[in-house]
């Protein structure tokens, strides 16, 4: 394939965004197949270490998505997650990790078309940015180097 097809991982919560993505399917709204969805019970469960792990394993972009504020199935998981992301994003920015490649969003179970939009815009954005070579190289270099 000549054209660059990014690898995008989506970390989503079970109750809102996963269900929203189900609705995208039920509504037959098309989006880029470059995304792989990983299901979590709640955004509160999403460990930031999985994000760096995903980059290390070859992801070019990451979507993290859950319920809108006040809609969390567990009432507050998304609030703790949001705070963690605020801090994590700051650290990433300071350390030169490309946070343009991490897209945070709220997609409810009713927002099927928003999910398709998020995936498509992220896909386009990552295509523009190109493969995340600097991080990939870091993680695959020879240990003895």
């Amino acid at each position, binding site marked *: 394939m000549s054209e660059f097809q990014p690898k995008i991982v989506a970390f989503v919560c079970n109750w809102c965004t996963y269900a929203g993505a189900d609705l995208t399917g039920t509504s037959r709204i098309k989006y880029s197949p470059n995304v792989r969805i990983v299901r979590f019970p709640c955004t509160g469960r999403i460990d930031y270490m999985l994000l760096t792990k995903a980059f290390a394993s070859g992801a070019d972009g990451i979507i993290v998505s859950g319920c809108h504020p*006040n809609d969390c199935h567990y009432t507050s998981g998304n609030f*703790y997650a949001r705070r963690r*992301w605020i801090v994590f994003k700051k*650290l990433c920015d300071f*350390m030169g990790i490309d946070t343009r490649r991490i897209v*945070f969003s709220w997609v409810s179970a009713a927002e099927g078309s928003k999910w398709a939009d998020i995936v498509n815009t992220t896909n386009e954005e990552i295509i523009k940015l190109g493969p995340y070579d600097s991080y990939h190289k870091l993680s695959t270099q*020879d240990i003895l180097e």
Partner: protein
Amino acid sequence: MEEIKKIARELLAENKVQVVLGFEKGTANKVRPAFFTKAEDIDKLIYNEACIHNIALYLKKDTCQHAKGVAITATPNVVRSILQLSAENQITEEKIHIIGITHEGKCAGILDFKAAEEFSKTQPKGLKPEDKALIEKIQAMSLEERFDYWVEAFSPCIKCYACRASCPMCYCGKCNVETNNPQWIPVASHKYGNVEWHMMRAMHLAGRCINCGECNRSCPVDIPLNILSYMLSDFVLDEFDSEAGLNSVFTSALSAYTVVDKENFIK
């Protein structure tokens, strides 16, 4: 100085404490942390400008853990560490006798936690100007430069874990880096493993670090680790109005939230 010794001696003599944690003269004109268990040994207890190490670290060591009472000569950084450890349920007030020492080196007497909180708030704090300058320098860099800077800065790391060993907040029995199922952090000290290790450590200290700078001092290869956690502490203070080391009961920016936390980055 004599006042500190007097307090320490009395505490031991009255058996209010079994251990006094402080400094003694080391070799080659250096100072070293010491445990004093007898009142007569207190003569050896010293305090001077060289005693900058954050000895709150030793409160979690067996000698202190097994004692019923512990006294500690505590500079502002040590006091802040003690308060944060208390906030995280690692030590209890009944057991700890803080012999406060101000940033000017004066004895502030025995501080209970309430007094310690006041002490902590009023004592000056902050980074050295050169560290601040470095933070600003890094923030002015481009994304790629920042990344390269840190990869390069971490590359001499030999994963000796002195940073962890010297940090009073790194008290976990089993550190994440030793968790191997799954192997979150690569063990080897290659560039990737180093970045991941220091990144994880910075996240774990976010909102908890009291900025004593011990990690940087103890690092044999001089990585400016402290500015990572300092930058985050500063950010957490700005963003969530939360600061470590000021409170002896629960505080942690990341175990809390407000409905109005900033959201401009979320689609």
